[in-house]
C-alpha cells in the first residue's frame, strides 16, 4: 500500500468567510480521481464538519489528505490547541461549546464530532491542551 497523492491545507481560526473552501477542494480532488459518489458524500460531510471545528473551536490548524493506491483515503486534522477537555462529552450528540457568534451563523449544533464518527470508516481522536489530532479513514473501492 503506497501513498499516491498528498495534499496539505491551512485553516485559519475564526475565518468564517472561507469556511468550506478546504472541504470543497478535497471534494473536487477526489471526484477528479474517480472516487464513487457514495463515498465522496461521506468524505464531504466529514471534512466539512472537521474543517469547521478547526475554525470555531481550535486556533486554526492543518489538514492533510492522503490517497493510497489501494483506495484508502486518509484525512488528518491537526490543530495547536486548546484541546477538548472532555472527549466523551464531545462525542455525545447535541453537546456543544460553540460561541454565540458561531451559533448565530448556524454552526455549533453539537452534532459535529458524532456526525464525523458516523460517516467515517475509521475514526481516531487524540486531544490535549497542546492540540487535537483527528484521523479519519475511508475505504473506496477502486
Amino acid at each position, binding site marked *: 500500500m503506497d501513498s499516491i497523492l498528498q495534499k496539505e491545507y491551512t485553516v485559519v481560526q475564526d475565518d468564517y468567510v472561507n469556511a468550506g473552501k478546504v472541504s470543497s477542494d478535497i471534494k473536487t480532488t477526489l471526484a477528479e480521481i474517480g472516487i464513487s459518489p457514495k463515498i465522496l*458524500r461521506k468524505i464531504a460531510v466529514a471534512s466539512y464538519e472537521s474543517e469547521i471545528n478547526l475554525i470555531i473551536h481550535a486556533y486554526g490548524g492543518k489538514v492533510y489528505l492522503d490517497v493510497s493506491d489501494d483506495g484508502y483515503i486518509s484525512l488528518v486534522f491537526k490543530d495547536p490547541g486548546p484541546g477538548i477537555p472532555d472527549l466523551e462529552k464531545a462525542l455525545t450528540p447535541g453537546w456543544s461549546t460553540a460561541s454565540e457568534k458561531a451559533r448565530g451563523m448556524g454552526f455549533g449544533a453539537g452534532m459535529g464530532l458524532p456526525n464525523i464518527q458516523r460517516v467515517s470508516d475509521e475514526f481516531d481522536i487524540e486531544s490535549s491542551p497542546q492540540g487535537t489530532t483527528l484521523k479519519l479513514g475511508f475505504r473506496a473501492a477502486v
Partner: protein
Amino acid sequence: MRKSVVHYTLERCIRCMKCVKACPTSALSMSDDRVIIDQKRCINCGRCIMACHNRGILAQGSTLDDIENYDYTICLVPGALISHCASLDEAEDLFHAIRLLGFDEVVDITQYTALHLKEISLLAEENEGDPYIASFCPVIARLIQNSHKSLLDALLPVKCCSEIAAKDIRKKYAHVKNLGIFNLCECESKLELAKYPYGNPQFEVDHALALTDIFPLIRKNMHKGKDPVSFCKEGLQVCNPHRIVRQDGFLIADGFDKVCTVLDMAEFGLLNEFRLLILYPCFNGCIGGHMLWGNSFLATNNIDALTVKNTKPAADLPFDELYTDEYGKDDDDKRSFMERTRFFKAVNDEFERLPGYDCSACGMQTCRIMAEEIVKGNRTEDDCRVMKTLKETAQ
C-alpha cells in the same frame, strides 16, 4: 454521451473571449483563433450565449419545415411562455398565432407540470434522509453529473415535463398515423430533450423549437383570432420560484450562483432538515428563460391573472410512466483510479508552475485548464504568454 446544444459561428466571432470567461464549467476554450466547446463539460446553461455580443454563439432548434414530415402535428407550449401573456385574452391570441404556424393542435403542458410537482411532493413527503433534488431542469441534472457527483442519488428520477406530456399525448393519439410532437422551448437546455435536432432518440418529443427563432413568426400571426385556452394553476406556478406551491421542508432557490451554493451545502450535509430542493438556474425561474423576450417580474404577476378562472386540474397518469433511468449514466471515463490519480497529480504539478493569473491569454479559461491541456500534450508551457514574457525578460 449527449451533445451540447451550443453552436459557434466563426464568421461572427471577434475573439473577445467573453464566452470563454462566462462559462461556469470551463467548457469553452479558444484554440487556433476559434472557440472550441467541450461537449462533456457543457451543461447547456446558456451563459456563453448571453455573454456573446455578436450572436456568435447560439442554440438552434428544428425548423418549421419539419412540420411537413408529419400527417398530424401538435405543438407543446411551456408555462414559462404562457406567463408572458398579461391576460387570458392575450393567451388565446398567442395560442391561435402559434397554431397558424402550421400545427394541427397547440397544447399547454401546465397540467403535466402540475403532475410532476405532485409526484415529487409525494416522494419528498416520505423522504426521511438527505434532501431530494427536483428534476424540472435539465441543467441541474447536468450540473450534478459534472461537478456534484455525490448528489446523483438525490436527483429524483422523474422525467422532464415536456416528456411526460409527449408520452401522454402519444397514447391519446395512438389512432393517428405519423404524429409529430414539437416542443416550443423557452431556454437552450430544453432543446436537447427531443429526437431532433440533436439526435436523442430516447425522447418522445420529435422536434425541439427554439423560441428565439420562432418568436418573430408568432408575432406576425398575432391579432388574427383566438383559440380557447385553460391552464392548470399549480402547473403554471411551477415555472416561478416565488409562486410554486411550497410545502414544509422545501428549499427553493433561483439564479445560477445561488443554485451552486445550495448544491455545495447539500454535499456537505448542511441541508438535512430539508426534504426537497427545487432549483432554478435561471433568475426568476423558467419565466426568466433566456429565449423569452418579456420582463420576468411582470410575468410572475401574470400567473395570478391567468389562473383566476377557467382552470383545469393536473393530469393523471400512472406513476411508473413518469420515471426515467437516464440520469447519472453519462460517466464514460474509462480510465482506472490509478491513471486518473496520476493524471491529476501531473496536472497539479504543472498548475504549480503556471502563473495562476487566469488571464485566458492562452485561450484557456483558467491556468488549471491550461495545466490539463499541457499534461494531455495539446499545449506547451511556451503557449503561456506570461511565462513567455518572463522568460524573454530574463534573457
